[in-house]
């Protein structure tokens, strides 16, 4: 008898816990919604923290009553963010909204049936018209828009030490051959300096360098086809040439790159240990942190610019509306603010990206580098391609692809055939062709 009683008590305790949770959920879904916004994001690094504060400043300027509950996760857009988010989502307890990259990452959440489409909001804001078409396309899945992009990060940028280039009488390299010439000249004049800085600790950085070469070798159509899995890299000449060229770049590259993160590779340039570095627009923030003035201390150009046309690789941050969000009304208000210039201008100027809206005057940026890029996109919105940085191909492929390229970069005498076979296997194992079919370009 006593045993039955004790079992009943245990069951009732569990039941109480479970039902209490359920009731709470129900209570928050009522008409008189609390003005609360629980938000997951990863912008807590230097330059990023300030940018995140701009979101809430813009939100409070319009909706002062909203109480923001931040749940930032350290460690960038990488794995630590996903660990927490994944557990919350699969437990059916999503935060009100969270930061997500457009493209494959967003698709993973859409496929998981965690998000609500935002057709009405996009129509209301006429958002498709005010952002570049290729940007809008990376938020369209099964014909519906998900998420509101708030910026654009351009990936294929080569930064260089301007004083050094002036001193040695060098001009900025516009393609791979010029890059090799410039690198050789720097190596000769400054034997202690590494012409190209690099950090591959987080793995994705090496693939950035290869991206520049692939884009120069094959052009934009090839780039898209490659990461959509439509090319057999084991037999393909262009990809092999690109890898060989990457190998040729090694003697000019910082050799201990496996130890450095991306921001440390930027610091190499600031410290005078390296002359150039490839990194996305977010490096501008890192340079600014080191008191380097854009356009004076360092120059930047999207790479390559010749002989083929100039294309910009990009990816974008966004906020989304999850299903079962406890405060959907507040989230919608926040998304409206996210789409507005009042949020995008201060946030993106501080963080180092470009603004998503092309109706914003490029002059809002204090530096000539971003003014020029933003103006270029305004005039040529179709010259944007979604990059491979967590975007076209599924994450299962990208993560392993980065590791393969980083490993290739770290080997003194890499076996190109083996690397090609390895990457070829990745494309088939992780079914890139199937999972990247959503991407339409141009």
């Amino acid at each position, binding site marked *: 008898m006593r045993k039955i009683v004790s079992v009943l008590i245990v069951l009732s305790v569990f039941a109480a816990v479970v039902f209490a949770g359920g009731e709470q959920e129900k209570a928050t879904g009522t008409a008189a919604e609390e003005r609360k916004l629980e938000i997951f994001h990863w912008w807590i690094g230097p330059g990023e923290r300030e940018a995140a504060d701009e979101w809430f400043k813009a939100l409070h300027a319009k909706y002062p009553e909203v109480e923001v509950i931040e749940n930032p996760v350290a460690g960038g857009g990488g794995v630590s963010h996903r660990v927490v988010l994944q557990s919350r989502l699969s437990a059916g307890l999503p935060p009100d909204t969270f930061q997500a990259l457009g493209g494959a990452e967003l698709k993973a959440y859409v496929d998981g049936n965690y998000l609500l489409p935002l057709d009405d909001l996009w129509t209301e804001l006429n958002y498709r018209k005010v952002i570049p078409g290729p940007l809008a396309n990376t938020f369209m899945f099964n014909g519906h828009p998900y998420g509101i992009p708030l910026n654009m990060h351009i990936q294929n940028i080569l930064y260089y030490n301007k004083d050094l280039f002036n001193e040695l009488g060098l001009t900025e390299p516009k393609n791979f051959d010029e890059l090799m010439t410039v690198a050789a000249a720097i190596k000769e004049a400054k034997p202690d300096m590494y012409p190209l800085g690099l950090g*591959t*600790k987080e*793995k994705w950085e090496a693939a950035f360098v290869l991206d520049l070469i692939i884009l120069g070798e094959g052009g934009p159509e090839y780039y898209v086809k490659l990461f959509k899995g439509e090319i057999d890299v084991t037999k393909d000449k262009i990809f092999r040439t690109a890898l060989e060229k990457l190998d040729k770049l090694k003697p000019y590259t910082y050799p201990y790159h496996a130890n450095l993160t991306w921001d440390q590779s930027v610091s190499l340039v600031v410290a005078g240990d390296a002359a150039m570095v490839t990194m996305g627009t977010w490096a501008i923030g890192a340079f600014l942190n080191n008191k380097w003035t854009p356009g004076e201390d360092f120059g930047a150009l999207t790479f390559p610019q010749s002989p083929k046309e100039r294309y910009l690789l990009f990816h974008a941050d966004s906020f989304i509306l999850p299903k079962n969000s406890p405060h959907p009304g507040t989230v919608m208000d926040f998304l409206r603010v996210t789409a507005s210039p009042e949020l995008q201008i201060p946030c993106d100027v501080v963080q180092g990206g470009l603004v998503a809206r092309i109706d914003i005057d490029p002059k809002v940026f204090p530096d000539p580098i971003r003014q020029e890029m933003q103006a270029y996109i305004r005039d040529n919105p179709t010259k944007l391609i979604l990059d491979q940085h967590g975007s076209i191909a599924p994450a299962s492929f990208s993560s392993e692809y980065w590791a393969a390229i980083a490993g290739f970069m770290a*080997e003194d005498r890499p076996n190109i055939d083996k690397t090609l076979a390895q990457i070829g296997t990745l494309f088939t*194992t992780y079914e890139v062709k199937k999972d990247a079919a959503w991407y339409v370009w141009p």
Partner: protein
Amino acid sequence: MRLSLILTDSQEYLTFLWPCVKMHYTQNGIVVVRRKKTVRSKYTFIEFLIFKFPLMFFVGLLYGMLGWTIVVSFTNWKGTAPNYDFAGFKWYRLMITLDRFHVDVANNLKWLSLGVIPTVILALFIAYLLELGSFRKLESYIRTLILYPVAMSFIVTGTIWSWMLDPDKGVFNTILRGVGLGFLQGRFTTNPSTATYWLILIFVWQYLGFSVIILQSSLRTAELRDMTESALIDGASRLRILLQIIIPNIRSGLLILIALLLISTLKVFDIVYIVTFGGPGTATDVLAFYMLLATFQQHLVSLGAGIGVVIFLIAASIVIPYTIYAFKKWFD
């Protein structure tokens, strides 16, 4: 005999949890089969709350998770949303085709052998040296010094060592350059073929002091001291005393130490995460790290669960036979 206590306890607990369960256990080598006839519980409700409920919670959580991981590894969970369709051995079959998996298993075996054996041997010598008379005065200082690393978390040691091992700005190479021995400079963790060994070195450094303390405590028994003294009078050399008297007599200490080290090297994750993040490429990757990446970065949850099961199987296949062997030896 704490380990054996725990064993008896768990047996008690088992009877305690399922009073009607048919119990098999050994008494002085004879298997006893006993069926409990009386199902009446001897415990009051308060006792139940205090003892039984936390235990059930613990057992449920630990073994429930273990069971759940095994279940998930046979499902088809790929992507962000759970998918419990049965997929058989699909992910295990994929796993053995992956280059990365082979690198990981090889690295884990390196950790198991090179993380444990040198640590035990070094610790044995240091403990013995400290016990020798000539070091008495210095002993307490040295002991504090070698115990420091244990007090630090892997995050701290990892960060410090990655600063020391940095080939460009790190302490070691700077010193070598400074004294004109620049040709001896190493690439340390940035060289794919040797990086894992440098990580294991960090582990050995961190666990050495701890191992010394455990062995020292087993060295300090009156019997052992008597034996050592009489051996000395008989004219045995110090080394011979160590090999033929001390080692056979501190088996219990060695057993616990080796078991602890085996477990620590099997679950190694933090050093790899902090110092190299699995790099260069995948050169220092280990199973535990790949499990995290597969589950949360690649969104291949079933594959991640499968890797977890593999870690569990490796651990079981090493630790269980070892413990059985050691217990047999111990209770000879």
